[in-house]
């Protein structure tokens, strides 16, 4: 009786562990994105082409262009002297402007970085942080 109980318990536990493990494996494989700074990626761009990336950098002043009457954006993002061209279609966050610290989700192509829909996130420069407040 006792042994059958333990066997059942062990089987249940094994089945649960196996199914959870399988699910974790499949989701981690396709669910993760590399979090990189612009200079890390642009040091050897070929390596990163096609991979899901979160790219961290600063908007180059004067580089933002919007095609009139559309939401097609082109801008440049830099970090430590390396620059990448970015294309994006959609609404940008409230705080998106020159020099904004941004995190872009998307993929690198030979023509530049293509940001996903809703893939532009800004870091609020002054959120709770008095030392970096402008003005």
């Amino acid at each position, binding site marked *: 009786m006792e042994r059958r109980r333990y066997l059942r318990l062990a089987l249940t536990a094994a089945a649960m562990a196996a199914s959870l493990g399988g699910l974790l494996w499949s989701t981690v494989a396709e669910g993760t994105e590399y979090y990189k700074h612009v200079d890390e990626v642009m040091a050897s761009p070929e390596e990163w082409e096609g991979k899901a990336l979160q790219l961290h950098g600063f908007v180059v002043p004067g580089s933002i262009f919007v095609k009139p009457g559309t939401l097609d954006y082109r801008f440049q993002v830099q970090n430590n002297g390396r620059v990448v061209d970015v294309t994006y*279609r959609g609404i940008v966050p409230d705080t998106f402007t020159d020099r904004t610290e941004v995190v872009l989700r998307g993929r690198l192509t030979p023509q530049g970085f293509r940001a996903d829909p809703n893939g532009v996130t800004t870091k609020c420069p002054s959120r709770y942080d*008095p030392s970096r407040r402008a003005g």
Partner: protein
Amino acid sequence: MAALGSFLLLTSFVVGSYAAVAPLAGVRRRAPRFVESGIGAFHLITALMLAASIVMINAFMTNDYSVQYVAHYSERVQPLFYKITSYWGGLDGSIMFWVFLLSVFGSVAVHVNRERHRVLIPYVVSIIAAVEMFFIYLMIAHKNPFTTFLSASPPDGGGLTPQLQNFYMAIHPPSLYTGFVGMTIPYAFGMAALISGQLDDAWLRAVRRWTMVAWVALSIGLMLGMLWSYEDLGWGGYWAWDPVENAALLPWFTATAFLHSVMVQERRGMLRIWNVSLVIVTFFLTIYGTFLTRSGVVQSIHSFVEDPVLAWLFVVFMIAILVFSFGWVVYRLPLLRSRNELDSWTSREAAFLINNWILLFSAFFIAFGTIFPTLSEALTGARLTVGEAFYGKWMLPIGTLLLLLTGIGPLLAWRKSTLAALWRQLLLPALSGGTTAGALAALGMRQWNSLLCFALCAFVAGTIAQEFWRGANVRRRSTGTDIFTALVGLVARNKRRYGGYIVHLGVVLIFLGFAGRGFTRESDTAVPLGGQTAIGDFTIRNDGIKVTADEQKQMVTGEMAIFRQGKRIDTLYPARWFFRRHENEPVSQVAIRRSLGGDLYVALNILPADVGRQSAALQIFVNPLVDWIWCGFAVLIGGTGIALLPEGALTFAQSLSAAGHASTAEAKA
């Protein structure tokens, strides 16, 4: 005045050390007056923190910019309301506010339980005082909110970040903090029981209500955070799996697990190690959450600046909590033996156990996802992040399973349910769920996730309705009253059980709202003056954009005419506000047309320079069923309120049952 504030903090630290030690010494020496003096000191901390808070608020109200904290987070033109809420707008002040809330909670808990749990109180006082000392130490040694400028003070302050100048800022942090600090009370009682060895179930009774209070405060805090995000951030959603959101969700899961498993201990004397561990883990997670938010370890829009010193202080404190707490659990293992064994897997205790595993797994899964970027960077050097898709993939089946258990659990009897009895109980709810699924599929719904969710919502709603209906009918027959009085009497006789069912109903409604997310439509377009854009049934016409200003900000407001199937139904005014000296941080004022069927959500995206062209860049969402989430939370709060009602409440309906033998449990037997 700032010197007075610093002095109050120092004094409260000293008084705290007395309150932490004196009660223990009193117990050892059997000197009740020593214990009493410790309790007195404990209440004194509360008074001192109240005084310090008054000094702080006074500094904000009188524009005392010699205090650095005030100068950073306030300015002269800031409305009085936001001057006061700036108290918890920054890191230093939020820690002080935290201690203040904890001291108030602690004093109330100690006062209420001073007679009933006389043996536990000295330990409770000592533990809460020790936790308070940690946070006061953080302020004194590292983040004193009363620090003044060494040089001349600035003529005006920097002003609270525009995004925080918002009504939710006044209520969201306090309710979340209340939930967080509230979890300290159950922990203190649990540890008191462990240390004193008084591990009968008396401590559970003291803890249950406090956990419920903290739990509902945490739920309200989460809801307000979701509402804030939804109404003000302009992205159309309410939950982004942001590390700080996750941090608040973690203790919510473990506290929910505890509120269920505590019933198993009360009824069957099982899960005793489990329960005390859940209380410890919940408390630990509140500290862990605070650590995540305040140390800058994870990157999030909420988090304060990176602060390695603070991070290390927290790490040391967290390790101390774990070693101390689980050390006592191990030491008391012989006293924590279970009094019963699980009889059958078709029993209510088994359902609770599974529910606990899933809730705990959710907590650890989310903790894992939250810390994953930091972890992967430490292990492999490459920072890998997990996105919404990853959480979605996991939490969708987990949520579905929990919802299913919400339905099945209450139908199972304690110890063992026979299959025949279970079948009788399941029939109607299953029919209601099946009919819903069939009808929706016939209507052409092909989003299987949402379809399943709707069906389960119907199933759970069916079980709840059935419980109320059967219980009320049994009671009506036995007491001879009308059905309504019988219903109230039923709830009054077993407030926790039926309050719990109402909470479940709230959860069902919340899930209904979640299921609507599968049908969200989004459109990002630039609409010229007089131009139109269509989304779903709606057509939106740009009738122009105008600029106005008040002394604090410039406001760019769009006038959007809304049509539905060709008929004009409404006008929406989405806007963007540009606060002076914060022009780079405009704040969206989203316009929402609410209805229970779904919201029309319009956010305006425009720079002042573009106003001349009168072209509006609009982000438009149609969010079906989203308002059910807020309704669900309201029901959940109401249900908890009923469960928390004092013994004597609703006697008018109870007094009719002098015989008092009506309850569904007996009706089932």
